[in-house]
């Protein structure tokens, strides 16, 4: 049966199955929902290219440019966090599953890097911007952006893997 919903990806999008753990139990929505599956090598440049690919494909999605922009900002922060702090093996990969429902875009990010510190799961305060220019923070904005843009965030560590689920409103 052909789904009535519009696909959000190119027809040539690679579908990544996961032979290592077929019983992975992250629910990604109904069978007919449009999905995007990607395995992204855990490097800054591959993440950058992946985000650019999403942006290029997004005009055909049933989402406004602002919402897509938010999704890409948030996903970029999540993936770069994995690259910089989590998955550091040279061959490390990050699995990304995007699902578009009628109300939101749901993202599942799976990696085999170090566990996510619990402090990342609560909304952080903005870095202190008082004081002189020389005292301004140059980092610490990433998780603030993620929590600002995500409607929901769920995290689980299952058998040496990180499963992070995020939702952005459409």
């Amino acid at each position: 049966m052909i789904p009535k919903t519009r696909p959000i990806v190119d027809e040539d999008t690679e579908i990544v199955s996961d032979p290592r753990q077929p019983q992975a139990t992250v629910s990604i929505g109904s069978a007919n929902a449009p999905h995007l599956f990607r395995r992204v090598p855990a490097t800054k440049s591959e993440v950058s290219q992946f985000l650019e690919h999403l942006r290029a494909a997004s005009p055909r999605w049933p989402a406004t440019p602002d919402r897509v922009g938010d999704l890409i900002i948030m996903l970029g922060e999540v993936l770069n966090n994995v690259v910089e702090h989590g998955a550091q093996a040279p061959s490390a990969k990050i699995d990304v599953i995007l699902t578009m429902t009628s109300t939101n875009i749901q993202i599942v990010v799976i990696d085999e890097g170090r566990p996510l510190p619990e402090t990342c799961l609560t909304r952080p305060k903005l870095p202190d911007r008082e004081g002189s220019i020389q005292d301004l923070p140059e980092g610490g904005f990433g998780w603030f952006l993620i929590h600002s843009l995500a409607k929901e965030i769920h995290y689980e560590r299952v058998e040496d893997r990180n499963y992070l689920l995020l939702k952005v409103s459409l």
Partner: protein
Amino acid sequence: MKIETTLEGDILTATPQIERLDSVCTVAFKEQMHISLAPHQGRVILDMAQIQFMDSSGLGALVAVMKTLDAGRRLELRHCAPPVMRVLTLTRMDRIFVIHGDASDATGSAA
């Protein structure tokens, strides 16, 4: 990375020829900006016209560049695309940089 610069009076305008200011290029960006700005004592406008995407490390790079300006000078940003403005406003850093809407704003009034 190529950054074009023009000098008009005491205003140096730097225009990076990149579409993404993200973690891939922030090191090169900071180095190039440092070289471009080092001898200049006046206002500095960063023309973001080519940049369609900026992430948190790009934002950190802008802060780092502003710190290289002495005498409390603020980095001025021009032609910020919507995704760039989104990151600036969400982090409230739009209050830290001087944001110009277009060219006439930037060169018409002092910061």
